[in-house]
C-alpha cells in the first residue's frame, strides 16, 4: 500500500506591498489632501481612511501615476471629478503580510447535500512588523472555518466589483477538479484524500493570490471573509462556481465580439499586450497538457516499476546460484525504492507544475476578460458620444420650432449626455490605467511564480537523483559479489 504523501508546500511568493496613506483614523476628510468626494452612495462600512491605490513598486514603470481612488461596491462608477495626479506624502509605510495556511477539512455536521471536502479551517496570521495604527484586522492570529461555497461567493463578489474596472481578479478553483485537458489523472473519487488535498491546495493558492493583490486585500468582503466567525451562506453555488464566473466573463467577451467593435486603438501597448496574452494562452494550455501527460506517464512508470520489482524478486527466488539470487533480490528492492521515488516525483510534477499551469490558464482568461471590459467601456463612451451628437442635432432642430418646453428638455438632455460622455472618457482612461498597472503586476508575479516553482522542481529533481545514486551505489557491491 502506498504511503500517504505530504505535498511540497506551495508557497506563493509573499508580495510585499506598501500602502501609502494618510493617517487620519476618524475624520472622513483629511485636511491636507485636495477635496475628493468619497462617494456617499456606497454601501457598506464607511471608509475612515483614504487609501492610496498605487501599489506598484515606487521604482516601477514611469507611466504609473499616483492617484486617489476608492473601489466601489456597486457596478456603477462614481460621479466624482476625474482623478488628478496628486503627490501624497506618505507618513507611514507598513508592510503587512498575510499568511493563510489551511489545515485538513473538518467534517461539517449539517451537511445539507454539500460535497465532501467542503469545509476548511483557515489559519490566518497577520504580521505587522512596523507597528502602525492601521488595523485591517482585529487580531493578529486567528482561525476561521469556511466552506468551499464561501470561497466561490467571495470570488463572485470581487469579480462583480472589480473586473469591469480593469482589475485582474484571481479566479476561484473549479468545483470539479478535472484537468483542463482531456488527459484524466486518475479517477475522480470525491471522498478521496487526493481530491480533498487537490481542492485544499487550490483554495489556498486562490486565497493567497487574492490577499496578495493590494487592492483586494483592503476590500471589506475580503476582510470579512478572513475574519468573521460566521459568514452568511452563499446564495447559489451553481452560479458562483469558478466555471460559472468564467462563463460570465466569456459571455461578456462574446458579447463584445458580437458587437463587432472596431476599436480605434490609439494605444499600441494594448494591442501588443492582447496579442501577447493570446500567444501565452496557447502556450500555457499546450504546456499544461504536456505536464498532465507527464504526470500520467510517470504514474504508469511507477506501476510498471513496482511490477517489475516483484517479478525480479520471483526470479531471484528461482535462481539457484546463491550470490546471483541475492543480487536479484537486491535489484528487486532497489526497483521498489525507485518506484517510491517515481511516485514522489509524480506528486511534485503535479503539484508544482501542473496546478500552477492550470491556475495561470484560468488567470489568463481573467486577463483577457479585463481587456474585453475595456473595449466595452470604450464602446459605451462612443455610444454616449453618438447620443450626444443626436441630442445636439435634435436641439438644433428645435431652435426653429418654437417649442420652448421641448427646447428646454433638449438642452437638459444635452447636459446629461455631455456628462455621460465625460464620464465615459474618464471610465475609459481609468480602466486603461488600471489595466496597465495590473498587467505590469501580473507579469512580474508570473515570472516570480514560475521561477519559484521551477527552482523547487529542480531541487526535487536533484533530491531524487541523489537518492537514486544512493540506491545504486548500495547495490553495486552486491552485483560485484556474484562469483
Amino acid at each position: 500500500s502506498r504511503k500517504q504523501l505530504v505535498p511540497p508546500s506551495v508557497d506563493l511568493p509573499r508580495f510585499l506591498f506598501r500602502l501609502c496613506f494618510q493617517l487620519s483614523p476618524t475624520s472622513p476628510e483629511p485636511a491636507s489632501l485636495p477635496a475628493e468626494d468619497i462617494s456617499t452612495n456606497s454601501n457598506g462600512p464607511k471608509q475612515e481612511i483614504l487609501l492610496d491605490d498605487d501599489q506598484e513598486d515606487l521604482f516601477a514603470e514611469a507611466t504609473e501615476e499616483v492617484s486617489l481612488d476608492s473601489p466601489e461596491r456597486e457596478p456603477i462608477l462614481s460621479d466624482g471629478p476625474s482623478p488628478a495626479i496628486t503627490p501624497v506624502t506618505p507618513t507611514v509605510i507598513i508592510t503587512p503580510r498575510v499568511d493563510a495556511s489551511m489545515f485538513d477539512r473538518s467534517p461539517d455536521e449539517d451537511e445539507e447535500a454539500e460535497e465532501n471536502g467542503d469545509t476548511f479551517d483557515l489559519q490566518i496570521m497577520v504580521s505587522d512588523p512596523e507597528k502602525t495604527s492601521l488595523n485591517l484586522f482585529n487580531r493578529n492570529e486567528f482561525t476561521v472555518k469556511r466552506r468551499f461555497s464561501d470561497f466561490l461567493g467571495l470570488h463572485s463578489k470581487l469579480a462583480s466589483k472589480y473586473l469591469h474596472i480593469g482589475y485582474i481578479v484571481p479566479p476561484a478553483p473549479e468545483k470539479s477538479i478535472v484537468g483542463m485537458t482531456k488527459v484524466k489523472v486518475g479517477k475522480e473519487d470525491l471522498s478521496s484524500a487526493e481530491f480533498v488535498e487537490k481542492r485544499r491546495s487550490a483554495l489556498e493558492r486562490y486565497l493567497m493570490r487574492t490577499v496578495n493583490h493590494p487592492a483586494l486585500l483592503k476590500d471589506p468582503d475580503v476582510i470579512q471573509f478572513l475574519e468573521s466567525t460566521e459568514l452568511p451562506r452563499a446564495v447559489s453555488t451553481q452560479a458562483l462556481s469558478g466555471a460559472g464566473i468564467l462563463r460570465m466573463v466569456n459571455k461578456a467577451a462574446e458579447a463584445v465580439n458580437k458587437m463587432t467593435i472596431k476599436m480605434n486603438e490609439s494605444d499600441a501597448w494594448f494591442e501588443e499586450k492582447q496579442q501577447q496574452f493570446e500567444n501565452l494562452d496557447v502556450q500555457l494550455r499546450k504546456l499544461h497538457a504536456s505536464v498532465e501527460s507527464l504526470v500520467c506517464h510517470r504514474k504508469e512508470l511507477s506501476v510498471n516499476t513496482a511490477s517489475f520489482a516483484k517479478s525480479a524478486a520471483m526470479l531471484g527466488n528461482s535462481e539457484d546460484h546463491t550470490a546471483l539470487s541475492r543480487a536479484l533480490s537486491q535489484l528487486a528492492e532497489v526497483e521498489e525504492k525507485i518506484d517510491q521515488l517515481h511516485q514522489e516525483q509524480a506528486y511534485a510534477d503535479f503539484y508544482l507544475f501542473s496546478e500552477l499551469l492550470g491556475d495561470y490558464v484560468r488567470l489568463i482568461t481573467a486577463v483577457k476578460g479585463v481587456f474585453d471590459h475595456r473595449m466595452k467601456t470604450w464602446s459605451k463612451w462612443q455610444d454616449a458620444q453618438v447620443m450626444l451628437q443626436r441630442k445636439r442635432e435634435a436641439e438644433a432642430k428645435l431652435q426653429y420650432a418654437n417649442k420652448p418646453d421641448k427646447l428646454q428638455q433638449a438642452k437638459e438632455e444635452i447636459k446629461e449626455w455631455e456628462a455621460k460622455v465625460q464620464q465615459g472618457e474618464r471610465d475609459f482612461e481609468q480602466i486603461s490605467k488600471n489595466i496597465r498597472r495590473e498587467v505590469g503586476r501580473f507579469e512580474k508575479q508570473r515570472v516570480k511564480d514560475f521561477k519559484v516553482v521551477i527552482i523547487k522542481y529542480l531541487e526535487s529533481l536533484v533530491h531524487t537523483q541523489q537518492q537514486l545514486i544512493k540506491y545504486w551505489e548500495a547495490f553495486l557491491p552486491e552485483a560485484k559479489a556474484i562469483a
Partner: protein
Amino acid sequence: MRSVSVDLNNDSSLLIDIPDALCERDKVKFTVHTKTTLNSFQKPEFSVPRQHEDFIWLHDTLVETEEYAGLIIPPAPPKPDFEGPREKMHKLGEGESTMTKEEYAKMKQELEAEYLAVFKKTVQVHEIFLQRLSSHPVFSKDRNFQIFLEYDQDLSVRRKNAKEFFGGFFKNMVKSADEVLISGIKDVDEFFEQEKTFLLDYFSKIKDATAKAEKMTRSHKNVADDYIHISATVILHTGVPRKVEGRVASDQELKLTELLRYYMRDIQAAKDLLYRRARALADYENSNKALDKARLKSKDIPQAEENQRQCLQKFDKLSESGKQELTSFKGRRVVAFRKNLIEMAELEIKHAKVRIKSAVCSEHNLFTHN
C-alpha cells in the same frame, strides 16, 4: 559492445564480427567478417553479405542435425524490428504542424537515436549468435556454418532447398516435446531431474521479468518524450534534463531488458536440449519394449537388440554432453548477469550525476537571470 554474453572470440583461430550493416526499408544486410587461421577455410580473411533469414536457416540446420542433439543450440537472433520507431516517426510527421520547430527537431533527434539503438541491438544479437558458434568446439566445425561464413553467392537458393527437407520434422519435435517433459515422470538421474525442475520454473519467471522490464522501459521512454515536449515550450529555460532522461531509457534497455530477453531464449534452448534427451529416453524405452516383444515372439531379435543398443548409445551420449553443456551454461549465465548488473548500476549512477549537474546549472542560471 558485448552486452549479454562473455567468453566469446577467445580462440583467435576463428574470429567473427559484423563491422557494419545496411538498412534498406524492411531488410537489413549484415556484413559478416571472418578472420581465421584454420585450413578448412579458403582464405584467411573475408566478408560476405547476409540477411536475417540466412541466420535462421543456419540455426534451423543446426537444430535438425542429430549429432547436435546433446548440445544447447544458441538461440536464433530475433527478426530486426523497426516497427516501434517507424510508427513513432510516422506519428511525428503527422503532428509536425502542432509543434514548434525546436520541439520537432528535438523529437526527431530522439527518434533517430531510438532507431539507431534498435539497429545496434539487432547487429549485436546477430553477431553474438555467430560468435557463440565460432567459440564452440563442435559448432565451429559445422559444415553449414562454414558455408554461411564463406559462400560468396546469395544463400537464398540453398536456403529454400534445406527448408523443404527439414520443415516437418522440427514441427513434430516441438509438439511432443512439452508432453514428454511435463509428463511428470521423475528422472532417474538426479542432475537432470533438478535441471528440469529448475529450468521450467526459471523460464516462466524470466519470461515474466522480461515482459515487465520491457513495459517499464516503454514507460520510461514515454516520460522522456513528455520532457521533450515540455522543455520545448517552457517559459523559462530549465536546462537539459530531458536529454539525459531519454538516453537512460535506451541504455537501461540495452543492459537489463536485453540481458533478460537473451537469457530467456537461451533457457528455452536449454529446455530444448532436455526435450531431446527425454525424447531419446522415450525412444530407448520403446526399444526395450520392442526387444521384449521380439523375444516373446522369437522374431527379429538381432535387429531389436541392435536398435536397443543404438538407442541406449544415443541416450548416453546425449546425457553426457548435455550435462557438460548445462553446467557450462550455468557458469556463462552467472557471469553475464554479473557483468550486466554491474554495468547497469554504474550507468544509472553516471546518469544521475549528469542530471544533478544540469539541474544545478539550470538553477544557477535562473538565479543569476534576475
